[in-house]
């Protein structure tokens, strides 16, 4: 840990032989049987080509050697990890290490930033989501997203929730029911049921964030990505959202980025620690996955000294 | 702690009787004997009108009931604290609680944002820095500032350091000496002595930040304010800056804002914990000082449960 400029690939603590071929997820084709899911083989994280959490459950999303670029700048280098079904997976790490970038790669939200590029494979139930025939819109419908700053639309509360079902052309017999159900799911119904027609901007920050969650579950996704969903909220609102996440994981798979390590420790089943190290010479720092394991393991007995340094607050 | 919307003033844990008059710092006049300084009386933080750290040294800056406004929005409410001479004082708290706002009020950097207003009194060696005849430029020269993102000028390294002495009209017999001395003071000399004429933009982030510190000490201030000076840096650079701070405090008084509690614990003599609670109804949150004490006390035995919650990562 004395040379911060060392390229991640030459880092001695994580050796990464060429990735072992994975079934179904390297071909770039998406005509695979949609019902098949992959069980991640158990492997020792250090020795294996694939950094996986031990005791891995069935994977919903698997990433293999995923690197993300903004133009010519490689923001994240070769991330290989699996997102377990009905689990909460936390991504932690210092600012700029690429947590958000990785998260957004998982449902192709990065497509929207011009010049971005993703290499490697991200498979959702074994289907390459960057495959040729894949419709990113469908990917995003199945893998929803909640953002750091609550971002309700400048519309009524009702319209915010109804928007998703409408634009995705969901068959809805009664929109009112969908709205109510979603708001209940986000533990917001009681607070807003009397002002559904009012502007969403009138809600408090925490309520707005729950509205965004309601909006997301209205389109019935399978996975929900959350990018620091509580960092703009106060303690009470934060703990409400955390409670909500624990409830939601019964029905959904959740990936959350947080800079609050205690939050990760409280809610996550598995935690991935990322960091970014400066390349030789000038400022560009490339993020990479240092360690990915069960949350208790990461916080009590991390395998990498950088993880330990970060957890114990020595930087970040 | 169940009602996040309670106005800070009615918070039961911090009772604040009308401020005990302080010598020299309430009049708004600055014709006070300029040699006088104030020693902070030792008081129990809970009982006293003034929240002070115990074992207080001589104060360089004292703030009394300072509230900061952006337009009509009160960002920070009634902060009363003292900055001890040749100490490092850390301001911590969740995002948006007003740490930066308070810090910038201390050297009138807030003046530059249109619509800002500061009420209450901030006294520097007993002189009200918002007094009628006070020149904010002189205030900023004596109370320097280092920012979150390294912000060197698009000039050479040399010119960056020489800029302050030049524009403040400092009598300088040999600018080269001033530049060398300042760069040595910021532990940067050895790394840049051969490329003084090169652009500062060619330096790494950590070097740039030390350059900014060198630039600040070149004008020989008494106090240095630092707003999250390491949050954009990697661990190595961070620890260099932390070491530097420990050296600098021999000659300077330092106030640092950090979101890294461990950093506060490592470097600060005293720590102030701020938080922001949402006002009734809508999103505006007003920040206020919850607790201010010796760092060891804050981290081992905080008087306020919110401090404890924050320290232990229950929110933020």
């Amino acid at each position, binding site marked *: 840990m004395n040379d911060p400029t060392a390229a991640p690939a030459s880092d001695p603590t994580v050796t990464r032989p060429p990735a072992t071929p994975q079934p179904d997820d390297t071909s770039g084709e998406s005509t695979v049987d949609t019902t098949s899911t992959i069980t991640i083989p158990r492997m020792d994280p250090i020795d294996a080509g694939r950094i996986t959490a031990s005791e891995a459950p069935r994977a919903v999303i698997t990433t293999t050697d995923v690197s993300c670029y903004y133009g010519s700048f490689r923001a994240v280098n070769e991330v290989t990890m699996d997102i377990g079904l009905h689990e909460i997976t936390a991504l932690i790490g210092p600012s700029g290490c690429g947590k958000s970038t990785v998260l957004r790669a998982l449902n192709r939200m990065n497509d929207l930033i011009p010049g971005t590029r993703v290499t490697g494979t991200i498979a959702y139930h074994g289907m390459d989501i960057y495959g040729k025939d894949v419709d990113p819109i469908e990917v995003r419908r199945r893998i929803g997203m909640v953002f750091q700053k609550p971002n309700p639309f400048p519309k009524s509360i009702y319209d915010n929730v109804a928007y998703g079902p409408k634009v995705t052309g969901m068959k809805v017999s009664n929109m009112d029911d969908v709205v109510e159900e979603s708001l209940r799911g986000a533990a917001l119904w009681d607070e807003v049921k009397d002002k559904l027609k009012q502007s969403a901007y009138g809600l408090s920050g925490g309520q707005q964030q729950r509205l965004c969650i309601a909006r997301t579950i209205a389109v019935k996704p399978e996975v929900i990505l959350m990018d620091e969903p509580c960092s703009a909220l106060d303690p009470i609102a934060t703990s409400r959202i955390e409670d909500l996440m624990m409830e939601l994981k019964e029905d959904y798979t959740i990936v959350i980025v947080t800079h609050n390590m205690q939050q990760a420790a409280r809610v996550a089943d598995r935690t991935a620690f990322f960091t970014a190290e400066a390349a030789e010479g000038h400022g560009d720092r490339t993020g990479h996955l240092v360690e990915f394991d069960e949350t208790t393991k990461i916080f009590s007995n991390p395998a990498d000294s950088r993880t330990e340094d970060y957890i114990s607050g020595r930087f970040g | 702690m169940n009602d996040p919307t309670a106005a800070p003033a009615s918070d039961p844990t911090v009772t604040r009787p009308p401020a005990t008059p302080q010598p020299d710092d309430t009049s708004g006049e600055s014709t006070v004997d300029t040699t006088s300084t104030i020693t902070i009386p030792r008081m129990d933080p809970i009982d006293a009108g003034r929240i002070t750290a115990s074992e207080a040294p001589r104060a360089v800056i004292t703030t009394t009931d300072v509230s900061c406004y952006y337009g009509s929005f009160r960002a920070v409410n009634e902060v009363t604290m003292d900055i001890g001479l040749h100490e490092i004082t850390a301001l911590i708290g969740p995002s948006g609680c007003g740490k930066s706002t308070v810090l910038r009020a201390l*050297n009138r*950097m807030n003046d*530059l944002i*249109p*619509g800002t207003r500061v009420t209450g009194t901030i006294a520097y060696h007993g002189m009200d820095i918002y007094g009628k005849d006070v020149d904010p*430029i*002189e205030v*900023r*020269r*004596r109370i*320097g*500032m*280092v*920012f979150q*993102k390294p*912000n*060197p*000028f*698009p*000039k050479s390294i040399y010119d960056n350091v020489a*800029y*302050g002495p030049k*524009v*403040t009209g400092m009598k300088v017999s040999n600018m080269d000496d001033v530049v060398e001395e300042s760069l040595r003071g910021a532990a940067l000399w050895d790394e840049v002595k051969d490329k003084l004429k090169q652009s500062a933009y060619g330096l790494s982030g950590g070097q740039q930040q030390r350059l*900014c510190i060198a*630039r*600040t000490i*070149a*004008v020989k201030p008494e106090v240095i304010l630092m707003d999250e000076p390491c949050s954009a840096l990697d661990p190595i650079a961070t620890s260099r800056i932390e070491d530097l701070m420990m050296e600098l405090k021999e000659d300077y008084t330092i106030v640092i804002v950090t979101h890294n509690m461990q950093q506060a614990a490592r470097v600060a003599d005293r720590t102030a914990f701020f938080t922001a609670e949402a006002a009734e109804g809508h999103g505006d949150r007003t920040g206020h000082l919850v607790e201010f004490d010796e760092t060891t006390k804050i981290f081992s035995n905080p008087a306020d449960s919110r401090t404890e919650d924050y320290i232990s990562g229950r929110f933020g």
Partner: protein
Amino acid sequence: MGFLVVAAGVSILTTIGIVVSLLLPAIQFFREVSITEFLTGTSWTPRFQDPTFGVLPLITGTMWTTAIALSVSIPIGLGAAIYLSEYASTRTRKFFKPTLELLAGVPSVVYGLFAVTFVGPVVLKEWLGIEVATFSVLAAGLVLGVMIIPTVASLAEDAMSAVPRALREASYGLGANRMRTVLRVVFPAAVSGIAAAIVLGLSRAVGETMIVAMAAGSQAKMVTDPLEGGQTMTGFIASAALGDSVQGSLQYNTLFAVGLTLFVLTLIINIISIRLVNRFREIY
């Protein structure tokens, strides 16, 4: 989506249209008049009995009005820009910026009228005692300069506002006052944007028609004295358009030769300006 692409394509069609509609008659023109004569000749009498086709008189006319206009609009425009971006309160800026921008909104015929009936005879002659001709390059240039003040000011202000707050704060944090911060940090950092502002002002000045057509005079001659009249490229096009020529005649094609010259000139100026703008965008 198809509509969006087609709409975007309109701009390309426009450029092609301009090039074609200028180039075809201009080619005809250059069949009869050598490019050398056109570009180096100092006499411009295309519509007289023994026509001459040296475009330099029109170019000197344009250069004079443009130079005078810039000598007004650069100092005034930059001064106003610095004031608005660095000194004015939000309130002041909110009032003065749009007010100043009205200067660019005043129709150019109104300016033309103002130049002929007021600036020339009253301001220059009566108040300042300058013996200007009824139609003078000076009066036209001055009013043209007033018109482009906001062009220069606005883009220069944008460039200065684009200088990151962090740089200003660094400077103030070191105890620099406003003037020094402006002159030593903001201005140098914004210099390419400011240059772009000036270049944009330049291209406006070169292309403006009505003011010069109404106030600068219509005699194409090598301008040496700004107190006298002179004709600019745009002035020629406008006056030639008022009288009419048979399509295909040499005189008719003259119009397009000058139009093409004007187009190419502004194109060159604009390319320079785009370069400059891109450069200042790159920095931050």
